[in-house]
């Protein structure tokens, strides 16, 4: 019996189950391929030290453009709300991370993406 259906399809789309079988194997093969490629890219990023360089670059850019100070102000609000003694890392993460992600300037995003794309094209072929 089938434990796995391709996305967007259900068994009602097929008259009988045998129609599903070759379809699934092709899909899972592609998905596995992608997942494996992704895993190998991630590994390469770490091994070559590129991930650390990108992290540093991002941190520098975010400080430079004032994102860090903005975020610190947000954190102050959370702390005042929860109380200095009782605030936990979880409180900060839950409140501040979504805002942090949204407030990254586009120029910073563009620059980082450029570097990542360059890495991908260099290492994935």
């Amino acid at each position: 019996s089938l434990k796995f259906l391709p996305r967007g399809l259900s068994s009602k789309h097929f008259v009988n189950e045998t129609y599903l079988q070759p379809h699934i194997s092709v899909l899972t093969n592609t998905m596995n391929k992608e997942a494996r490629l992704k895993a190998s890219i991630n590994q390469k990023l770490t091994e070559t030290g590129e991930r650390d360089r990108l992290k540093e670059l991002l941190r520098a850019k975010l400080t430079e453009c004032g994102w860090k100070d903005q975020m610190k102000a947000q954190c102050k609000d959370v702390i005042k709300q929860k109380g200095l003694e009782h605030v936990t890392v979880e409180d900060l993460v839950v409140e501040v991370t979504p805002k942090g992600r949204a407030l990254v300037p586009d120029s910073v995003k563009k620059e980082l993406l450029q570097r990542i794309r360059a890495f991908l094209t260099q290492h994935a072929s």
Partner: protein
Amino acid sequence: MKMEELSVSSLDNSKLEAMAQDILSDLVEDACLGLCFEVHRAVKQGYFFLDDTDQESMRDFEIVDQPGLDVFGQVYNQWKNKECVCPNCNRSIAASRFAPHLEKCLGMGRNSSRIANRRIVTGNNTNNKSESDQEDNDDVNDNDWSYGAEKKGEALDFLHVPQKLIHCRFSVFPHLFFYFTAKKRKSDKVLLFYP
């Protein structure tokens, strides 16, 4: 898993772009978390709100620039002319000489054992007879490998063996006895078996 099987050409650009976006969002997430940890630590260690101090309190912590005082306003050479009483010998010693004196007085520290050994050796050369009677003192010198330097020569002269050799407590292979090199310990008892 070879890279050729998984080349970019097998994926279109949108997949590549999606991958890049994923990586970027991982990095941003990492930066946010890093910030949260940094802030949380600053809060718990008490230095998060430091730059919000008012002008009044800031003046309390200004750098001190007066002669005879360090930047915190403390007097820094008040121990120059003081004297301390040694708890061991009850002598009055100058403060700057106190630590070395204490080392020698208490018999701790690197040099004091060397000096003591030297004194023992020179004391021994003028005091030979009494040493050989003190069989029970064997363990006193157990830590001192170099003690037997002079004794080695005289005790084993009749065997015509090289200076350094091992003295086992139980020598099972006497013919191998002389092939090891190690320092003699006074506490080792020599058992020689002749075949």
